[in-house]
């Protein structure tokens, strides 16, 4: 065991420092630091209620910390734990909707999105309404929407929930490709068997304190 006081010396695409978050009287995060470099995959783990999702939402800018600072180089691709879809829109219409936000044309968003869905083993018609999709297919679309536009920073909150075994394996292969492509990836997970696929693991303490255990692969 080695005590380190510094991990980075160059500008990281994602750097969250001294993050404190309270909900009412309850402190969920207490002085947490998370930095993700280019080409690095960091896994965020911890017990239920440790604040993993809260930390990820703060990193994405969806939630403001009570204390601390988040610096982020570009708009991240964010995959929420629960698919955030409009049930009465089709898969294709979701690609158009999120693609327009990323500045993609209708055709470009559709083609890129369908390629990503295929790589995740999505079986369905682009015209199917998302309310009629299976849980796994919804989650694959959810992840695809985060990846649309090829963002440099990926924030993923248990993105493989509902995936079958093959898709789950495909997901971690994709993670390896993102690393090779130089993306900064922060993934919340509680599947400890795959932690070796991450470059670093940040274990959020169950009870709020300044202690954050970090292990290197």
């Amino acid at each position, binding site marked *: *065991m*080695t*005590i*380190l*006081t*510094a*991990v*980075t*010396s*160059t*500008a*990281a*695409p*994602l*750097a969250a*420092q*001294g993050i404190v978050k309270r909900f009412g009287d309850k402190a969920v995060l207490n*002085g947490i*630091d*998370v*930095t993700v470099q280019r080409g690095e995959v960091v896994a965020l783990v911890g017990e239920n209620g440790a604040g993993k999702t809260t930390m990820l939402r703060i990193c*994405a*800018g*969806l*939630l*403001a*910390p009570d204390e601390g*600072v*988040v*610096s*982020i*180089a570009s*708009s*991240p691709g*964010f995959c*929420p734990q629960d698919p*955030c*879809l*409009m049930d*009465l*829109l089709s898969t294709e*219409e979701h690609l*158009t*909707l*999120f693609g*327009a*936000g*990323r*500045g993609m044309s209708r055709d470009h968003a559709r083609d890129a999105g369908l390629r990503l869905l295929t790589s995740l083993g999505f079986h369905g018609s682009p015209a199917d*309404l998302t309310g009629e999709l299976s849980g796994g297919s919804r989650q694959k679309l959810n992840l695809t*929407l985060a990846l*649309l*536009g090829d963002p440099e920073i990926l924030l993923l909150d248990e993105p493989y929930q509902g995936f079958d075994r093959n898709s789950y394996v495909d997901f971690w292969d994709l993670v390896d490709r993102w690393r090779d492509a130089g993306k900064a990836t922060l993934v919340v997970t509680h599947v400890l068997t795959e932690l070796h696929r991450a470059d670093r693991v940040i274990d959020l303490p169950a009870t709020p304190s*300044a*202690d*954050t*255990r*970090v*292990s*290197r692969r």
Partner: protein
Amino acid sequence: MTTRRIMVICEMHGHTLLRRRLTMLLLVALPLALYLSGHGYVRIEFGGLGLAWAIATVSLFTLQAGRTIDPFLALSGYRPFELLLGRLILLEGVGAALAVLFWVIMSLGEDPPRPATLLVALLVTAGIAVPMGIAIAALVPRELEGVLVLIGIVAVAMVMENNSVLHPLYGSREILNTAALAERDAGIGAATLHALGVASSLWAVSLVAWMTRVRLHLRPPSVAPKPAVASGSPVTTD
């Protein structure tokens, strides 16, 4: 790009609304039921208030439905005002279409003394109803509370004998009654100004509330960030 993003929001919510066939049916049925339940000139006022109620309710639910997805759309590049404006264009269009439909129904059914004024009245009513529903959705945290607030506003307008400038639908009621009653002064300038003022205020409130709600808390990285792990924090390596 802004225009394209606004039109995509408008298009997608249009798909969603059109696929809710029962909602589309009720959008017509509610004002029609209120219109038919009235007697004499009150019929037109009830029909108009029913129209406001139906359009405001759909507007409220359209915005409430975006509460979960809008932050993610903002992360993907949408600005809060684009999310709001896309819905406004769609809902004002739906409102205007319904206003014309009810103008035809009321013109055929009532033979109003001032049909042109009636068309203005219904368009103004629909025009106010959209920002009213959106403002309630932006300010009230949940759908149930929003619906109760809306029922309160419309119900007060329906039971209130004397119109009050303090009520958001004051301008609409004034113009509706002017269209329905030949003995009233034909001028609708003050009432129209009131309606425009209310609509503008509701829009301003909605915009501020929505921009606050879907605002992202991001800042670019500094050139040399501080250490990733706070001094003194234990860090373990394998």
